[in-house]
């Protein structure tokens, strides 16, 4: 016999599929939903349905959006000569929050990782090159993550981009702000020293 009545078991099983949710959390969430107001659960269902219906990927930059092209790609105030490449849509949000960057974006939806079976064909690389053919781009900023996978992706892209003649840059890497030098490894320190500047 199942531990709970079938509908409850089904709900727990579905919640368990979500990343970061184990059996206990799933059980807790299921019981929360079970006891919640009808209105509250309907809002949740509606919110889930709405993202599935309305959110699409921008045909230009692959960012998630509800209009195509997305609000960044269609904004005339943005500098169309620069494209900043990130792994995930939430990386874009982090950069946007600084309000320093006024160019366009390109979202790869991942990074190279042979172990996880992710090669160049699994990433949104092809339409980046299509954009470069149509638009006058002067600089590409590679802002993939500073881990081994992000580095490999940046190295791979720069190999392909450099022959096209535009400026290819990588975001600076080094000691994190608010941290302690003691905890930086040699390679990070090496990068931080190589990228040092006058004060």
């Amino acid at each position, binding site marked *: 016999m199942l531990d709970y009545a079938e509908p409850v078991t089904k709900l727990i099983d579905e919640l368990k599929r979500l990343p970061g949710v184990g059996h206990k959390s799933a059980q807790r969430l299921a019981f929360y939903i079970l006891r919640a107001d009808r209105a509250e659960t309907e809002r949740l269902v509606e919110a889930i349905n709405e993202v599935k219906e309305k959110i699409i990927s921008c045909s230009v930059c692959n960012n998630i959006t509800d209009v195509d092209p997305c609000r960044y790609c269609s904004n005339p105030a943005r500098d169309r000569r620069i494209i900043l490449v990130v792994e995930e849509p939430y990386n874009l949000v982090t950069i946007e929050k600084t309000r320093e960057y006024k160019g366009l974006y390109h979202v790869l939806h991942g990074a190279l990782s042979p172990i996880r079976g992710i090669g160049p064909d699994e990433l949104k690389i092809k339409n980046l090159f299509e954009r470069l053919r149509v638009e006058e781009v002067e600089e590409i900023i590679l802002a993939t993550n500073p881990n081994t996978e992000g580095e490999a992706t940046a190295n791979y892209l720069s190999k392909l981009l450099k022959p096209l003649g535009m400026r290819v840059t990588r975001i600076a890497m080094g000691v994190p702000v608010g941290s302690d030098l003691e905890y930086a490894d040699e390679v990070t*320190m090496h990068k931080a020293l190589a990228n040092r500047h006058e004060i």
Partner: protein
Amino acid sequence: MILTRIEASGFRNLEGFSEFGAGLNIFYGDNAQGKTNWLEAIYVLGNTKSFRTSQVRECISFGANECLLRGETLRGTVEKQLQVLVAESSKELYVNGKREAVIRYIGNLDVFVFSLEEMSVIRGEPKERRRFIDRGVVSQTPAFLNTLSRYNQVIKQKNRLLAEASKSNSPERFYNQVEAWNEQLIDLGAAIHDGRRDYVERLNLVLDENDHGRAIFGAERINLRYKSQLEGKGDIDRYSELFRERLALRLRTEVAAGHSLLGPHRDDLEILADNREVARYGSAGQQRSALLLLDLAQVSIYTSTYEESPVLLIDDIDAELDRGRIEALLSEIEGQAQTFVSTSRRAIADRYKDRASVYWVDRGRAIVDSGSGKGNIEPSESERSREHTRSAGDELEQEILSDG
């Protein structure tokens, strides 16, 4: 630094507490009574890991839920109370009753162990020797662990990619990707090569000082040579350039092989006694003394870096060491560092009882020896060949240091 007292509960078969002298402390007793367990308890209290198993929770005694070690240390006039609480899935560390993160806890009691399991450094695969050097580099530069871990990640990724490429009908499609991973491999590999080579140079300086080996054991002169795989292929002093050149040259070969062929994960360390490879030409006794000399050199580097002596553990001191060498070793250490020794020979305990604190270990208790007559106990075959898991390292470090 010295450990003045330790108390154990739920830790293997240990019972009660022990108070120690600042110099030599000897645990002796029959087999399977808990001599090595006392050494292990001291090691765990200091390093929060075991030298006998990679899973410190295996130290929890049968039937107990957790084990608790409490110790008191003395550095100059500073006394501290240390506490390690290990449960099935947690480890809590306390300094003077206050819970601390591992990074703040470590360093209060640094413990070095000389044990037979370490003989694999001499006799085992090259990876055992790389681990030995890497542990040394990490003790000087903790961030080196991060470099090793990133290097191993890149090797894993590259191996997977090469395996895929070797099976493909058009392997040249993968060249760009392999090169992208190689970029990182060059930076990380050069940092590893240079870090290891510098450390081996420091070890050699110590070994050369006053002809260390001859002075202690009256015999071999021990020195080391870091043997890079790229040796003889070009200017090894400009490692990253050479590595880049070799990787480019052998790209096709690597793709055809389906795994990484180049890099410091293929390097080795030569341990020479009077310029002959000790693993091949040395007797068991010479091999153990060579290892002890290396251990002592590591301790000496530690002492000169931190201007303080660590605590030393020598497990099973009579294994493969004759009387003369034991005497030489203990005289060398005497007065330099607090030392804990385990032995199953009553004769050794007797010989040093004027210079040492002696504890008779019986069913997990360490009893201060009053000189009551116990027979001369030889280690049995089962004790010699008892199964030990690999030394040092928690799970993460274990994996990182063992290379790809």
